[in-house]
């Protein structure tokens, strides 16, 4: 044995190692491939040996060969062998090779799971490190799922070296196994405050990556990051955080306001350019997100622009580049401040560095105005001529087109100039943007009616010179332009001066070398031209000319009939037959021109690109359902060949279909116009252009500026755009002169000496009148188009799966425990699967379809509501400012769910946020999937505003949001259940105290609802819930859901309560103490809606009952009756409590303080799982779990007036004992009574 080892090592001496291989390759420069193939043979031999050292050496060499481009996947199994070596040296080689060549479809990866797990738990930190590094490169969804738990454990490893690697790799795990995000997130968040800067940096890194894709879920971390930003000195961390803030601010403008100051300070103080640059970038993002116009912002903008100018002027090209990059971001919102640096940017356009030129080009976009567009484009055209690389030239081309066409050709005053620019661009060698130019030509010719005559003339010249464009193969991209040219000439052939010549040009034999789709357009438009020519010729009473034209068609078309392209062939043969028929008629001296041109009658309107998509699906139409029974597999195969023939049939009837007579067409058009005019969704032409249309009915007849064609041109007959610059200059001067004249005249008339008007100052934008009266036709959209913008989202984005709501998890974890299904899979025996109750699953499925449709409908409205809500909140914020001054980052108004957890990091201070309540309801919603009951229980701090409608809207939007959230969670849950139900086993180590947030949920909770019946009769049913208002210790909000139970319309509902000394309904100012409150909505039959009423209470230690009445009018088709309904509002003590999360240490301090009075209660015969019990207390009585150990839990809640209520709940057998402490014994007693009652009911 020993001998064998010695022998092995001696053998090894003479094996080729990596260095030898490299040396060998270098020595065989001539026959490298051959040498390498012999080496690979050697390696294969080495891999067959038992000695792991030899194998490792071979794998190491393979890694090198992989770099040279050799596929080494055949050795994947050997790599796994080397990975599993016990020696670090070999293990490292194996993992390196694996990280270089393994990927998701490598099948041996599934063999590595256990090996990696072993390495991860190795006592040697470097084994673990190597495994983590390797895994980060080849993690698959399976590995991620199986190892997520192990890696999560490593996040709390004692060695920072492992911790930081584990934290980083979690991002990869999240990507592959999104379900792990929720359970791992709390720990990840913890790592943000890790003592080791490396770990901290890694955590920041991961969260930044996550937040970049789904920023809204991470808004709640803003306070924490803010703290880090002000405390950290690590520039890497700072850069990441500042970048993250850049992504967050668009979602939360208030955050931006807080950020400006520290960022400005950093800008002034830092010496690191990278940090300075990122700060400027984020300040820009903040300024973009904030509404402009506030005085202090202009200073920040100025600062940014000023700093950027310094960067751009720097001799370091990198800084110059970045300066321009950031400048382009400012440009979008504050074009004015960038425009003042035009000189600098134009200067950069001449830079020798292409990257910098490209960036400067981007900026040009915002620099143009009506005044300087021509000048700038002229400069760019010069660059186009000079540019050496095609990439840069193509970029220039697209930029020219972008600049000119931006915001509906806003800056173009002379479309003739633009057409000539486009024509000039067609001369570019080897550009691939032919189609772009073509589409611009089409767009302009269609939408700018006045230009058609000129455009057609230009296009005819292009067609005539088509050989110049198609001359050499390199220019194939540009021949797309001919597509546009042919179409324009055909469609607007009435503008052609010499249609016959153009027709000739279109039927040249050379055309047959063009791509098929262009030929097809040629053929079709030749037919249109033919119609025009016929029309003009028949008027001449000379029939021979017309017959000659037909003959020309008949002679030339067969060339296309032979085309290999189906489209060309089909069109050509159709038209050929048609022309032959026409010729026959002509020979009989029949007038045909009218009928032929009727083929192409009617004008095409431009249609918006998304128009088709936006046609709403009519109600009752299900696009997914089969119209007929789906054919069986075998049938469809048989039918396929048939379909090919069937398709050709309609061909014969096509010409006839187009022959709809003029009258009918006109009638239809009229009808459609009428419809469009009445339709609010139809985007009409802008008023200005409409006006033009009305004022100048003869726009088509505006004389075209004469062009002097004697100027030497590259392509004969094509104008140079440069002339237009001159012409334009002259025109403007003339205009100015005229204006001056007029002014002088006026002055003369007035004879007033004080008129010292500037006469030679720079003309303003408005002064420049377009050369042509331009009528830009807007694009047509379908009637009832859906105004949605979400068409552009990529459905395949892997980060979409990570769009997981983390807010409620982070902040009041106890109330929104991780569902059982969300636990990370842990290794365990599969046999021990826990029995699952089918009820919940069933529930979820039955709920879902019902809600889906309503959700979709609401989606649209939601955005609008949210906007409104935000602005409203701004207003409110000012009101409440005195309450928390700089205490927390966002201003403390936790009304919006997105900013819920502002306070969670302030451990010791008892949190003062209502946000917890929000989550409570969410948690409840999850536990109790009842569509009605979950709606908007959240307290609303709004003082009762007179704007009732607005209030209602806000509420309903909340309503919706919550439902959606719930739905999402349900879906998530369901999905996971389906996929991984065999992985859900708890650790079994139940001894460990479970801190805030990880209460296990062994069994699904039964549905719960806090809404209880208020009153009911045959017309209406009212259910209500009461919630405390955190902002104001004397207010509670009663949410009442009114449900219409009858078939009639309920209106004029008035809600009135007989106030007591202690509790009063808040009424709008000016109304008497006994007036009712109008319910801000009406109820159609079967509909329910929710209204909220604010009550002021003085003492909250006792429960109360208030009597009240609801009056309303029941309206039928013919009659209406007054009705009323009496009710009793029961204010329980529980309703004064607010769910407030509390940390165990703060809780312990509170108990130790000794200010609390004690009381206790015993509940007998409670027969429910402990976690159900806790959930019930949490849900019905607004408590949160502080800590849970086995069958014992501490809970906390707080009243609106700041009383602390602490519970210690213990369960043994069927007895539950609750020991409670509170600083107000009466309140405590009442709360305990209510808890007792809750459990006696079930």
């Amino acid at each position, binding site marked *: 044995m020993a001998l064998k080892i010695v022998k092995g090592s001696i053998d090894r001496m*003479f094996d080729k190692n990596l260095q030898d291989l490299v040396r060998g390759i270098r020595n065989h420069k001539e026959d490298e491939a051959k040498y390498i193939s012999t080496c690979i043979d050697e390696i294969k031999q080495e891999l067959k040996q038992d000695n792991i050292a030899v194998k490792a050496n071979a794998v190491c060499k393979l890694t090198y060969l*992989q770099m040279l481009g050799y596929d080494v996947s055949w050795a994947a199994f050997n790599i796994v062998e080397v990975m599993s070596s016990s020696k670090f040296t070999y293990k490292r080689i194996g993992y390196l090779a694996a990280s270089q060549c393994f990927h998701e479809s490598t099948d041996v990866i599934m063999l590595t799971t256990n090996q990696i797990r072993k390495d991860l738990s190795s006592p040697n930190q470097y084994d673990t490190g190597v495994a983590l590094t390797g895994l980060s490169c080849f993690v698959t969804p399976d590995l991620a799922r199986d190892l997520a738990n192990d890696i999560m454990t490593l996040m709390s490893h004692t060695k920072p070296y492992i911790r930081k690697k584990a934290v980083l790799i979690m991002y990869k795990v999240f990507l592959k196994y999104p379900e792990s995000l929720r359970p791992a997130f709390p720990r990840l968040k913890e790592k943000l405050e890790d003592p080791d800067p490396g770990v901290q940096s*890694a955590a920041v890194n991961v969260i930044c990556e996550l937040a970049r894709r789904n920023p809204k879920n991470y808004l709640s971390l803003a306070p924490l990051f803010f703290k880090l930003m002000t405390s950290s000195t690590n520039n890497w961390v700072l850069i990441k955080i500042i970048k993250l803030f850049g992504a967050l601010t668009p979602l939360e403008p208030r955050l931006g306001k807080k950020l400006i100051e520290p960022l400005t300070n950093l800008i002034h103080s830092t010496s690191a350019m990278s940090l300075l640059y990122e700060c400027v970038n984020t300040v820009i993002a903040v300024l973009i997100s904030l509404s402009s116009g506030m005085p202090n912002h202009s200073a920040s903008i100025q600062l940014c622009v000023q700093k950027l100018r310094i960067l751009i002027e720097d001799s370091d090209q990198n800084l110059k580049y970045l300066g321009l990059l950031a400048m382009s971001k400012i440009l979008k919102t504050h074009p004015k401040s960038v425009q003042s640096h035009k000189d600098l940017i134009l200067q950069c356009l001449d830079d*020798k*560095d292409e990257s910098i030129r490209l960036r400067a080009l981007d900026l040009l976009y915002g620099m143009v105005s009506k005044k300087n567009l021509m000048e700038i484009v002229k400069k760019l055209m010069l660059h186009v001529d000079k540019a050496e690389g095609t990439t840069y030239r193509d970029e220039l081309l697209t930029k020219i087109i972008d600049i000119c066409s931006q915001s509906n050709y806003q800056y173009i005053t002379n479309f003739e100039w633009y057409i000539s620019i486009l024509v000039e661009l067609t001369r570019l060698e080897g550009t691939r943007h032919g189609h772009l130019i073509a589409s611009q030509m089409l767009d302009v010719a269609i939408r700018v009616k006045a230009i058609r005559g000129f455009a057609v003339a230009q296009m005819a010249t292009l067609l005539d010179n088509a050989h110049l464009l198609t001359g050499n193969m390199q220019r194939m991209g540009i021949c797309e332009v001919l597509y546009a040219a042919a179409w324009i000439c055909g469609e607007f052939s009435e503008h052609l001066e010499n249609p016959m010549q153009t027709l000739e040009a279109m039927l040249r034999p050379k055309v047959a070398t063009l791509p098929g789709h262009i030929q097809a357009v040629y053929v079709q438009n030749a037919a249109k031209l033919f119609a025009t020519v016929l029309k003009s010729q028949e008027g001449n009473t000379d029939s021979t000319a017309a017959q000659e034209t037909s003959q020309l068609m008949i002679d030339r078309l067969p060339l296309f009939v032979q085309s290999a392209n189906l489209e060309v062939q089909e069109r050509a043969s159709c038209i050929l037959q048609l022309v032959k028929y026409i010729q026959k008629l002509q020979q009989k001296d029949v007038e045909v021109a009218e009928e032929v041109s009727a083929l192409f009658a009617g004008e095409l309107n431009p249609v918006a690109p998304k128009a088709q998509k936006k046609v709403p699906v009519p109600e009752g139409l299900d696009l997914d359902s089969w119209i007929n029974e789906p054919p069986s597999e075998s049938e469809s195969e048989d039918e396929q060949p048939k379909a090919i023939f069937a398709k050709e049939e309609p061909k014969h009837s096509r010409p006839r279909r187009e022959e709809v007579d003029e009258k009918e067409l006109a009638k239809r058009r009229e009808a459609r116009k009428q419809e469009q005019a009445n339709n609010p969704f139809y985007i009409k032409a802008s008023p200005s252009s409409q006006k033009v249309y009305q004022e100048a009915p003869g726009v088509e007849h505006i004389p075209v500026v004469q062009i002097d064609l004697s100027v030497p041109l590259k392509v004969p007959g094509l104008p140079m755009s440069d002339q237009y610059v001159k012409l334009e200059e002259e025109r403007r001067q003339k205009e100015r002169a005229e204006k001056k004249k007029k002014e002088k005249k006026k002055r003369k008339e007035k004879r007033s000496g004080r008129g010292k008007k500037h006469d030679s100052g720079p003309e303003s934008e408005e002064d420049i009148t377009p050369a042509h009266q331009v009528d830009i036709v807007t694009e047509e959209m379908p009637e009832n188009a859906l105004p949605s913008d979400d068409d552009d989202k990529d459905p395949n984005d892997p980060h979409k799966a990570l769009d997981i709501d983390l807010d409620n998890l982070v902040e009041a974890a106890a109330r929104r425990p991780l569902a059982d299904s969300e636990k990370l899979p842990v290794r365990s025996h599969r046999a021990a699967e826990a029995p699952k109750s089918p009820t919940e699953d069933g529930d979820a499925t039955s709920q879902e379809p019902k809600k889906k449709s309503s959700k979709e409908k609401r989606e649209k409205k939601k955005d609008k509501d949210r906007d409104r809500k935000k602005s409203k909140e701004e207003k409110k914020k000012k009101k409440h400012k005195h309450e928390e001054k700089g205490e927390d980052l966002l201003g403390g108004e936790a009304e919006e769910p997105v900013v819920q957890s502002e306070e969670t990091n302030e451990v010791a201070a008892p949190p003062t946020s209502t946000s917890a309540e929000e989550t409570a309801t969410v948690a409840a919603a999850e536990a109790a999937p009842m569509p009605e009951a979950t709606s908007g229980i959240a307290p609303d701090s709004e003082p009762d505003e007179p704007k009732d409608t607005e209030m209602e809207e806000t509420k309903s939007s909340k309503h919706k949001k919550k439902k959606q959230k719930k739905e999402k969670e349900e879906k998530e849950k369901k999905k996971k259940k389906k996929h991984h139900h065999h992985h859900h086993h708890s650790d079994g180590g139940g001894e460990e105290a479970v801190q805030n947030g990880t209460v296990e949920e062994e069994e699904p909770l039964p549905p719960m609802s806090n809404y209880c019946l208020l009153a009911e009769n045959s017309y209406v049913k009212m259910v209500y819930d009461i919630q405390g208002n955190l902002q104001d210790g004397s207010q509670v909000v009663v949410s009442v859901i009114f449900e219409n139970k009858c078939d009639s319309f309920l209106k004029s509902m008035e809600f009135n309560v007989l106030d007591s000394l202690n509790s009063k309904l808040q009424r709008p100012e000016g109304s008497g103490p006994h007036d009712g409150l109008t319910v801000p909505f009406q109820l159609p039959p079967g509909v329910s809606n929710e209204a909220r009423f604010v009550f002021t209470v003085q003492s909250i230690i006792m429960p109360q009952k208030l009597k009240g009445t609801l009056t309303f009018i029941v309206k039928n088709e013919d009659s209406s009756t007054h009705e009323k309904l009496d009710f009793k509002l029961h204010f329980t003590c529980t309703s004064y409590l607010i769910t407030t999360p509390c940390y165990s240490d703060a809780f312990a301090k509170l108990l130790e303080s000794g200010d609390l009075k004690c009381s206790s209660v015993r509940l007998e015969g409670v027969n429910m799982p402990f976690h159900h019990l806790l959930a019930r207390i949490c849900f019905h009585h607004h408590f949160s779990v502080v800590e849970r150990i086995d069958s014992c839990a501490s809970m906390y809640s707080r009243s609106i007036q700041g009383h602390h209520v602490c519970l210690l709940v213990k369960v043994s057998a069927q007895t539950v004992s609750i020991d409670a402490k509170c600083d107000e014994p009466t309140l405590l007693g009442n709360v305990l009574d209510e808890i007792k009652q809750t459990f006696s009911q079930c």
Partner: protein
Amino acid sequence: MIKAILIFNNHGKPRLIRFYQYFAEDMQQQIIRETFHLVSKRDDNVCNFLEGGSLIGGSDYKLIYRHYATLYFVFCVDSSESELGILDLIQVFVETLDKCFENVCELDLIFHMDKVHYILQEVVMGGMVLETNMNEITTQVDVQNRMEKSEGGLSAAPARAVSAVKNMNLPEIPRNINIGDINIKVPSLSPF
């Protein structure tokens, strides 16, 4: 995220490639060629950022590179990375190489590709920046190298000896191709 790290010499010969997203081998070679083509035609005094690699990434990705003597260090990154930060990172990486190899030159990278990988692994992991502190990086690399040596023990000694002898026979290895101008102006190196 860093999508790829490529090191190649002035002739486009790869010295180290590290992709953090899977590409097949021939695609990798194509990317290297394209990147080399883009980078090599640029003057040394133009900026170190480059857009327009068509094979890797797309509009969100940028090439950030540095050119040292005979070698190009190219990082392909997306917009979540700070441009200047990555430039500094390249500098940190190169300086670390310089420390670990004692005056690093292209030949070190040629013959010890594996070691360069191990160093890189301590700097970037799975496309994310792991460590930027040079001392920390070198410490970890050293400890691991020492472990390797101790594991090799007696049995590895003869192999090392042979290797040394082989190296002695190679007088042509020029040890003086210094990585050169290490003190290139780095805008913000000092505070890191």
